[in-house]
Structures are given as structure tokens and as C-alpha cells.
């Protein structure tokens, strides 16, 4: 494998890690506030469809992005209503949201575009186009660092940079602001937060809303950045890989970045090479597909460090009267 191939694989790692990272951070806000969210997949899917649909109709990818975020927020609202207001089972609500998105996107796509559950291909302003960072062209002739800058760091769509910037932003918000402290507290001990006179319901809804916005960006990136248009089931389990990455990262933002890059790398490898020949034996492509899930189970089993979820996760908060 020569240098250029490595750069190319890493480049697609960055692109494939972006939706995972956004969804993973989305889940991080929600779960840190004590709301389990296995509906990341559905929210991404809904956002992917609506962003592609609106971008196709208006020709503006930015309107598409807004529509995607709005769609994801609606589903977040349903999740909040079910799991915060009506104290329902958060896991069941997440399952319902996944199916709702899977069904509705195809139904509406068929009704609007009549192309068998897909949107028309996006062209021109309907997509997020790569951004050339300054001097990428001139620096590309530099040995080693040149290609790294011009191929790997430069030339991604704006949402990729947004996703990577979201990591320090999340860290700062969670660990350096009052809101972040309260958000983390509400996921560990909501009663204490309540006693301090801060609204548990309000905080949790805020967390679920942030989760919706980030999932919306993730979905919009899938349909308008990574690919050009929506196809049925296009999230293809990414929401669950993001969930796996979240556990892998033990619910922390910087670890989330490395976990998503790792899983993105696995996807990039699986995409580029079918079966990997290691001389003595070949690693079939299915192993690469399954590896994120296997690694997550191993982590969950506590053989490599212990992943402890936020203590009040999954439990609806009932105020004592």
C-alpha cells in the first residue's frame, strides 16, 4: 500500500466518520441527560430524506439542511413526549421512531417523486460541495505534508468541518458551562437537580432537541454531502454504529471522535477492499462489516475497560409529591 492509497483511505475514513460522529454526539447529549436514544437511525433517515427532497425541489442545499433538521426535531419531539412527558419506555419509543422514519420516508418519497422511494439526484446547488482550503493547490506539491493538507484536510464539505468542530464544542459545553453541568447531573441524579430548583423536564427536552439538531445535520450530510440524493434505507445501520461508538467512547466527546474515526476507518476499508489477504488467511468482508458491533459487545462485556452508562439513563423521572 503506497502513500497515496493510505491518504485516499484516510480521506474516505473522514467522510464516512462524519455522519457517525454527528449522530454519536447527538446520542451523547441525549444519553448524558438520561434519555436513551436508539432512534438515532430513524432521525438520521428522516433528515436525509427531507433534506434531499427540499434541496431537490428548491435547488438550495441550505434550505434542505433546515428541512432535515426540522424533520429530525419533530421525531425528537415525539421521543421527548413519549419518554419525558408520558414517562413511557424510551427504548420502545426509539424502536417506534426508527420504523416510523423507515416507513414514512419511502411513503412520502413515492408520493412526491414517484421514483420508487427515492429522490431525484441532486445537482449543483442542491449538494454540499467540497471546500478548498486556502493554498491547497500550491501546497500539494510539498512532499508528505502537501498531500495530507490538500487531499485529507482540505476538500471536504462544510458539514465535515462542522462535525469535527462539534467535538471541542461539545466538550466545552458539557464540562465548562453551567448548562453542561446540569445536563450531566440530570442524567446521573435528576432528583438532586430538581431539589436545586432546576427543571428536569426542561433540561431533558433541551438535550433531546440538541440531539435532534445533530441527527438532522448527520442525515442531511448523508443525502446531500456524502451522496447525491435519498435512497430507501440509506442510513444502513449508521445510527446503530453511532450508538456503538457512543458506548465505545464511554459517553465522552473526545473518545467519541476516536471511536467514530475507528469505525469510519473500518467502513472505508470494507468499501475499498472486499476480502483482505493477510497471507496465511483472508479476512472476509463480512468480518469488517461486523467488527464495530463485535467490538462494542466486547467493550460492553467489560473485558476492555468498563463502559458505565449515565446512572439515571432510561428511567423516567417522577417528582415526589
Amino acid at each position, binding site marked *: 500500500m503506497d502513500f497515496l492509497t493510505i491518504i485516499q483511505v484516510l480521506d474516505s475514513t473522514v467522510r464516512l466518520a462524519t455522519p457517525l460522529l454527528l449522530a454519536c454526539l447527538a446520542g451523547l447529549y441525549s444519553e448524558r441527560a438520561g434519555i436513551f436514544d436508539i432512534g438515532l437511525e430513524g432521525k438520521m433517515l428522516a433528515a436525509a430524506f427531507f433534506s434531499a427532497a427540499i434541496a431537490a425541489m428548491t435547488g438550495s442545499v441550505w434550505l434542505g439542511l433546515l428541512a432535515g433538521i426540522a424533520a429530525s426535531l419533530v421525531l425528537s419531539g415525539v421521543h421527548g413526549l413519549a419518554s419525558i412527558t408520558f*414517562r413511557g419506555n424510551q427504548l420502545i419509543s426509539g*424502536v*417506534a421512531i426508527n420504523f416510523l422514519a423507515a*416507513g414514512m420516508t419511502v*411513503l412520502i418519497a413515492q408520493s412526491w417523486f414517484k421514483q420508487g*422511494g427515492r429522490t431525484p439526484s441532486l445537482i449543483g446547488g442542491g449538494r454540499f460541495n467540497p471546500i478548498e482550503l486556502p493554498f491547497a493547490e500550491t501546497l500539494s506539491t510539498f512532499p508528505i505534508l502537501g498531500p495530507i493538507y490538500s487531499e485529507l484536510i482540505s476538500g471536504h464539505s462544510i458539514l465535515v468541518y462542522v462535525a469535527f468542530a462539534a467535538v471541542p464544542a461539545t466538550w466545552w459545553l458539557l464540562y465548562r458551562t453551567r448548562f453542561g453541568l446540569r445536563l450531566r447531573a440530570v442524567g446521573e441524579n435528576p432528583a438532586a437537580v430538581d431539589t436545586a430548583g432546576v427543571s428536569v423536564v426542561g433540561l431533558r427536552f433541551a438535550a433531546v432537541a440538541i440531539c435532534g439538531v445533530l441527527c438532522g445535520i448527520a442525515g442531511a450530510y448523508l443525502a446531500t454531502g456524502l451522496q447525491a440524493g435519498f435512497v430507501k434505507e440509506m442510513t444502513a445501520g449508521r445510527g446503530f454504529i453511532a450508538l456503538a461508538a457512543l*458506548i465505545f467512547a464511554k459517553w465522552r466527546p473526545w473518545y467519541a471522535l476516536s471511536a467514530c474515526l475507528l469505525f469510519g476507518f473500518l467502513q472505508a476499508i470494507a468499501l475499498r477492499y472486499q476480502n483482505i489477504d493477510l497471507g496465511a488467511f483472508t479476512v472476509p468482508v463480512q468480518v469488517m462489516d*461486523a467488527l464495530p458491533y463485535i467490538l462494542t459487545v466486547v467493550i460492553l462485556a467489560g473485558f476492555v475497560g468498563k463502559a458505565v452508562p449515565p446512572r439515571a439513563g432510561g428511567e423516567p423521572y417522577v417528582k415526589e409529591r
Partner: protein
Amino acid sequence: MEKMPAWADAVLVPLISLLLAAILSALVIIGIGEDPVAAVKLMVQGSLGSTYGWGYTLYYATNFMFTGLAVAVAFHARMFNIGGEGQAMLGGLGVAVVCLYMPWPHWSLALIFATLSSAVFGAAWAFLPAYLQAKRGSHIVITTIMFNFIAAALLNYLLVNVMRPKGSMDPATAKFPETTHLPTLHDILEPFGIAFSKAAPANVSLIVAIIACVAVYFLIWRTRLGYEIRAFGHSESGAKYAGISPVKITVVAMLISGGLAGMMAINNVMGEGERLIMNSTEGAGFIGIAVALMGRSHPFGVFLAAILFGFLYQGGAELALWTTIPRELIVVIQALVILFTGALDNMVRMPLEKLFLIFRKGDA
């Protein structure tokens, strides 16, 4: 004081939830520019209007009975088994191994061993998540989701690289031998002079599914193990205090659950496909969640809910065939049922409880 009589809890709440889901589904159909009344007529005609339609409805219902029971048993121990899909895939592998690599003189013998094998394979796939939950506290929902994906990758590997017959491009096993083909409802009902469609896939597995419903009823409410499972589900600390081992109950309940999900394979793989193909489960493992919620985790409720979903599935297929409404409508209905009967349960229950309290005060 009980806020609501038991019948209201068991019948009224799910019915109102179903009604809400139906109203929303009707709105969805109107929203995409179709006529909901005509759609329902077409669905009823297509799924219940002929023995052919019934054959498909009951075929789907058989799948959903197994997966619904699987989810229900886990619910009784207060566990959420999302892994029915993966367990059913592995069940298919169990059936394929028995049917392909062993000679069978008669289908009845093959059915017994295929049932056992599918149950063992399904249970085995549930074992690790159960064990990790019991011993290491890994959340069973997450591990079973992960195991669904791992199962899909495993089956993909086996079908493409190992079990595919030479020269075939299709990622599927060879056709099972003639002697393992299960009799369809047509074959069963013919001696009694009842004409039933020859083309429909409903088969003798339906009877196995009904037996499984009865068996689960006895297990949960008439045996010591069932009592322990329910006690554990109600209160883990209480069960521990009564000398019930949490590890044992978690593992055993999940093994039963996984086994039931795996047994679905005798219907879809042995009965209908007569070979193992990719994605033979078609999401039935997930529909089991809706079925168990709808049926209030009671075997009889599961039985009824499975037939309802069988009707929806076959009706949805007919809709997709004759109108422009895609099959995914069923996924939406399924989502709404899960949402209303599962997550938004309190939204229906709270006003209803208030209503009953008002009426009771009126009586007194």
C-alpha cells in the same frame, strides 16, 4: 384501590391505542392522496376475501406468533429482546443444517428435529447477550441489537462462501430435499373435504405456533419457572429475597425467548422458502415487538395480534400490487402501534383512569 377494572386494562387500552394508530394511518393515506376506505376494502378483500389471501395472512401470522411470543417471554422477565431478528436468522441456519445434511424419511420427523435445531440455534444466539446482562451488566437491548447485525454478517458469509451450491450465483443454500417439505394447509384440509388454496404458503407450522402459544401460557402462569420469571420481572430485589437467582432467570428467560424466535424458521425457511436465503426473516423479528406490546405479553393476546399483523402484512402487499401505496405503509402502521401501545401507553391510560374514577364516584 385499583383505578381501572382488569378488563379495561387488558382490552380497552390496547383497543384505543389501536384506534389511534388506525386514525393516524388513515390520515397518512389521505396525506399521500389515496382513499383510506378504498384501501381498507382492498386490504380486507386481499387478505381475508379468499383462501389464497387467508393462506398468506396465516403464513405471516405464524411468523409473528413465534417472534411475538419471544418478545413477550422476555417482557415478563422485564427484558427487552430486540434480537428476535438475529435469533430467527440463526434459527434458519439451524433448520438448513438439519434439512440439508441429514437424510429424512418423512417430513414429520424432519419437522420435529428442525424445530429443535432452530430453537437451539436461536437460543444459542440469545445466550451471550443474556449471560453478559446477567453476569456483567451489559445492557441487553444494546447487545441484542449488535447481535442482529453480527447475525446478518455471519449469514451473509455462510451463504456466500460456505453453503452456496457450486455454480450458483445466488447467495442461498440448495433446495431442501423433497422429504422435508412441509404440508400446506391445502394438504392438511383436503382430506376433510375443505378446499383451500394450493398456492398459499400457510403450512403445518401454524399448528406448531398455536401449540407454542399454549405452552407459553402454561409456562408463564402454571409452572414454578414461570412464576419465578414473573416475580423477577415485577421486582428484582423481591425475587432475590425470595431466593430466586437473577442470573438463572435472566439466562433461562432469554434462552426461551431466543428459542421461540428461532423456531420461526420452520415456517419461513422450511415451510415457505424450502431453502435458506438472505434476509429470509423480512423483519418479522421486529414485528414481534409490536405483536407482544399489542397482545399485552399474553399468549392469547399475541395470537390475536399476530393474526392482525398477518392481515396487515398481506393486505399491505395487495395494496402495493393494485395501488400506488408502497408496502412501507405497513411499517408506518407497525411504528404507530408500537408507539401508542408501547411508548405512549400512559397517554391513553391516564385519561382513561380518570374517567373510571369519575364514574366510580358517581356510583358511590
